[in-house]
């Protein structure tokens, strides 16, 4: 046991103060992956030409469930075996282009948009900390979009996240300055993204009226309590496009299995 799991057991002992070689371990399921990421094509290019997303940040190898160390596998596979062969296709067309100066209108527009977002965040000067928003978001998602989900719960969660977003953008407090090392400002930008992603996860979970992998809808289960798939209607990957605030458009990417058919997993 020590040879195989010694590292894990040591970690556990430090967290709990209990010796797992003697006392039964206390274990509970936890969310560990989003089961999704940025849409990319087969060359790992995003919807922005020339912008590639590798590893866990893209959606390509997530599937309905994801097990430990898959992120490591995907990072290595994308980095070693995909991008060295696909990036060249983009560079081949770019090679005759002169270096693009930072005075390019697209560069200036992007820089301005980022500077404005940061200034907006900083100038809110509200009362609540970034950490408190992060915790509240986590609680909403954990309760309603975690281990098991229902239509009613997800609708409530979407409303709650949208309300939280409004509150965040009107009452967050970020100490320190913009042009210095400022972890709170950094975190505020991340939490703003998490709020958006949290809403999307609920929107997606609500639209998928079946159970599969890490997505368990209480309404869709077998009499034994196992995930009830609906391959007739949901054999697709959902690629969501965000047009305006809270305006999500679904693009379905059909899944075709020719050799191995997906099936319900039963731990019995």
């Amino acid at each position, binding site marked *: 046991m020590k040879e195989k799991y010694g590292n894990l057991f040591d970690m556990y002992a430090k*967290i709990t103060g209990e010796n797992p070689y003697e006392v039964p371990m206390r274990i509970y399921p936890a969310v560990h992956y989003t089961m999704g990421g940025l849409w990319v094509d087969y060359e790992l290019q995003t919807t922005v030409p020339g912008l590639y997303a590798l590893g866990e940040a893209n959606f390509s190898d997530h599937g309905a469930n994801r097990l430990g160390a898959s992120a490591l596998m995907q990072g290595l596979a994308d980095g070693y075996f995909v991008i060295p062969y696909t990036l060249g296709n983009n560079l081949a067309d770019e090679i005759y282009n002169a270096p693009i100066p930072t005075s390019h209108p697209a560069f200036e527009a992007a820089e301005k948009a980022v500077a404005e977002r940061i200034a907006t965040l900083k100038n809110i000067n509200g009362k609540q900390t970034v950490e408190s928003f992060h915790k509240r978001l986590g609680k909403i998602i954990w309760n309603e979009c975690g281990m098991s989900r229902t239509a009613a719960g997800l609708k409530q969660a979407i409303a709650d996240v949208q309300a939280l977003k409004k509150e965040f953008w009107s009452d967050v407090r970020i100490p320190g300055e913009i042009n210095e090392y400022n972890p709170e400002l950094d975190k505020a930008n991340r939490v703003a993204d998490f709020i958006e992603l949290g809403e999307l996860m609920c929107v997606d979970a609500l639209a998928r009226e079946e159970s599969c992998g890490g997505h368990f809808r209480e309404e869709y289960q077998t009499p034994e309590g196992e995930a009830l798939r609906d391959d007739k209607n949901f054999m697709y990957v959902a690629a969501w496009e965000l047009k305006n605030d809270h305006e999500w458009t679904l693009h379905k990417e059909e899944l075709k299995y020719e050799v191995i058919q997906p099936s319900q997993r039963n731990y019995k």
Partner: protein
Amino acid sequence: MSHTTMNLNLKVWRQKNTKTAGAFEMYRVENISDEMSFLEMMDILNEQLITTGGEPVAFDHDCREGICGMCSMYINGKPHGPWQANTTCQLHMRAFKDNDTIVIEPWRANAFPVIKDLTVDRSAFDRIIQAGGYVSVNTGNAVDGNSLPIEKAKADEAFAAAMCIGCGACVAACKNSSAMLFLSAKVSHLALLPQGDPERKTRVTNMVAQLDKEGFGACTNTGACEAACPKEISIANIARLNKEYIVAGLTSE
């Protein structure tokens, strides 16, 4: 499990940036659970500071499970605090008792300048890795898993060296701010494996040259690094590094 709470005095190093002089500040945190991690306690301090109009303490952290090597606090005179083979994020508050005063400082070494408060710049380590801490392989073809047999004893030794998370505790613990334990772990893990063999000599030569450039101190074999290392990297690796370095020098073309 019994569960207690405690009130603590924190003596924390505050420093605005690399150029400004720093100083200790005293803070009081209350109702800290003994089941909290040290970083969770720091989060509570920061919440308290922000809501009362103060500036939060900047500190590095990422995975919070002891594998990324980001957290880097000098706690009560020891890198990563009082527990053996432990990172700051894995340190839990049951290590302390009610009304303790805890002294928290950044890593102190010329090669690790303070960026702010408890955050230091450890990019010197990145540059040492860039100088040779890798193997060059052709990408594209995945090699079959067992095509290169490696003896168990060697694989274990290489793995023990590869456990280094590059946190810098060895440098912080050393009276000379030497980074030899870090470097020796990186050189050893590749020197022990056949994949590391083709670049064996250039690797050690280039990495040692970069180490010297970064301004780390010399190693005098006192072993403080080994004692402070959260991954228990052995100083036997330093002996191996010296051997690799000498052999590379004597047999260079």
